[in-house]
């Protein structure tokens, strides 16, 4: 057998486009594997020269799935440009922004579970490709699909109520927010007359966690071992208590055994991180400077957040976190597929937080904007659904952006996803006489666990086939599948 190269392009059911290349040697053993990010996104350059107040609006164009996360990260940075630190925002502004953020995380997590993960879970990894999708889920389990749609819709409705109907809508302005919440808006989410209410969202979130735990009971060995490998973990934690924090906190990193590697003010990130580049990918590889490229990379996202935080502040999610942590005897969890479980616990947490905020009268306050002494640099860091998201802006004295640096969640997870691809490729593809579609799907699953957002935004019709190419050692195409 001659050397072969398997190319999976683009990766299916992830946010954006990517390509996986798996190189086999003469014996069919996996020699190496890479996840390439093939689309260059020059947004940092694009935004230079724009006034700083445009940033929270323009950055929403980065992603069709998580525009709110970019909006809020940019807003936190822009606050600093007008001299307002997070703790100086008015209570109403902070709570409205948090409500928007929790709505975003809730809808994004529900989207991932119901539409990206559930087909694999419901039908199994060996199911035919045409069955592993949401239409098949809807056909076989209409109620589950309906709940998925309604949960995502609930989060979207929160976003719409706060940021406006159209996609150009915004909530955050420099130093605060531009609108408050009304009693009518609050009742819409509490009374359950027009849409299932927040209590229903909490109940359904608990149901989905039970579904996942039962699935784990039946498939524990596979879930525990699939694409599992030790890593560091990074996430925001509450500044005072170390609790899970999604909007504003300290950056904390631990290693695979739980030893603390980093615990810093978030705005100090640039003194502690560097970004490596590789010739085969546009996506950079961030790492902690102190530990170097090989040992300093982190996972981010739901699994990392449950590893780095000490507890969860809402009661139902905390109970679930304790069950989750007990499974690893309170040690860090390095089992990649447990990311799905962690994501659902966060979904429940967000539903509880949304309820807390809806019952808080501060939400309807009228003190919306703070002011301060302008500066020329701002850094905004939040925990987006997929993990730590960093926005940094520099301006000149006219308020025009001169420099922008974005480190998105998927960038943090770049090394982790590559390790996952290699681990699974070795496990399922090495020395097999035939490469089947379910085998390729497993490679993709290792990536999908991170819910990566690889690029986004240009989705013109007719451009998203799945192409699988086999190439020999000289790069000659020896087989191709398009699905």
């Amino acid at each position: 057998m001659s050397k072969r190269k398997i190319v999976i392009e683009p990766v299916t059911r992830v946010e954006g486009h990517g390509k996986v290349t798996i190189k086999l040697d003469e014996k069919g053993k996996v020699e190496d594997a890479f996840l390439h990010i093939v689309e260059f996104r020059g947004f940092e350059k694009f935004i230079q020269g724009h006034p700083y107040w445009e940033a929270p609006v323009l950055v929403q164009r980065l992603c069709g799935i998580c525009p709110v996360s970019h909006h809020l990260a940019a807003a936190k940075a822009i606050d600093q440009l007008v001299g307002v630190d997070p703790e100086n925002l008015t209570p109403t502004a902070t709570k409205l922004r948090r409500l928007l953020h929790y709505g975003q995380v809730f809808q994004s997590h529900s989207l991932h579970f119901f539409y990206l993960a559930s087909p694999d879970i419901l039908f199994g990894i060996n199911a035919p490709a045409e069955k592993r999708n949401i239409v098949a889920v809807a056909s076989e389990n209409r109620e589950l699909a309906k709940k998925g749609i309604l949960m995502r819709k609930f989060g979207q409705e929160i976003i719409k109520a706060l940021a406006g109907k159209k996609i150009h809508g915004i909530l955050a302005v420099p130093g605060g927010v531009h609108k408050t919440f009304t009693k009518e808006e609050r009742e819409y989410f509490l009374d359950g007359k027009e849409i299932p209410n927040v209590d229903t969202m909490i109940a359904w979130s608990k149901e989905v966690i039970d579904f996942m735990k039962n699935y784990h009971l039946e498939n524990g060995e596979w879930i525990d071992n699939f694409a599992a490998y030790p890593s560091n973990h990074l996430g925001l934690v509450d500044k005072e208590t170390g609790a899970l924090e999604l909007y504003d906190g300290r950056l904390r990193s631990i290693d695979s055994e739980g030893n603390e590697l980093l615990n810093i003010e978030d705005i100090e990130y640039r003194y502690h991180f560097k970004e490596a580049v590789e010739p085969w990918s546009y996506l950079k590889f961030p790492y902690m400077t102190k530990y170097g490229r090989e040992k300093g990379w982190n996972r981010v996202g739901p699994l990392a957040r449950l590893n780095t935080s000490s507890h969860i502040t809402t009661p139902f999610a905390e109970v679930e976190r304790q069950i989750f942590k007990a499974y690893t005897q309170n040690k860090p969890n390095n089992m990649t597929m447990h990311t799905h479980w962690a994501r659902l616990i966060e979904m429940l947490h967000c539903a509880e937080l949304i309820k807390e905020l809806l019952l808080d009268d501060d939400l309807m306050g009228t003190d919306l904007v703070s002011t301060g002494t302008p500066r020329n640099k701002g850094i905004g860091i939040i925990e987006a659904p997929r993990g730590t998201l960093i926005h940094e802006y520099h301006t000149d004295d006219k308020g025009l952006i001169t420099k922008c640096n974005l480190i998105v969640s998927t960038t943090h997870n770049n090394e982790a996803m590559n390790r996952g691809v290699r681990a699974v490729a070795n496990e399922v593809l090495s020395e097999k006489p035939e490469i089947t579609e379910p085998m390729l799907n497993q490679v993709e699953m290792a990536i999908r666990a991170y819910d990566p957002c690889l690029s986004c935004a240009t989705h013109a019709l007719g451009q998203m086939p799945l192409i699988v190419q086999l190439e020999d050692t000289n790069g000659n195409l020896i087989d191709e599948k398009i699905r």
Partner: protein
Amino acid sequence: MKKLDNTLIIGIGNNTRQDDGLGWSFLEILEKNGFNSENLLYKYQLMVEDAELIGEYETVFFVDACKTDIPKEFEIKRIFPAEQVAFSTHEVPPNQILNLCETIYNKKPKAYIIKIQGYEWDIEIGLTEQAKINLKNAFSFFIENKNLVSKSR
């Protein structure tokens, strides 16, 4: 005001990616020509929950840029629920949304796709000159064939 009763027009795209903004531009022209904005929906991309939304209308138009060559640089055609399933739910195609709408909600809105050919997709605001011409032609054709629009008046 030209009402679009029971008709939803969804523009798909991103106006910071040059011709990817064609779907939104089509809606903007409709608004400038007096069509009621309540029935015009701007989307970066279709999402599964749109299956519920379109079930509330008798007729739905999906307007998007098209990268592949089409004879008149635009095309309007009837579409139906997909019998074959796409492989990405990130970019849910319109016929999959129709399929979900039928499967989950037992509703079958009449649906059309309006494809407008684009050429450049870099991070930049503004359509290319040829895309602007295609947009104008597509809009003219749409207006001249009002019988496509359910109950327009």
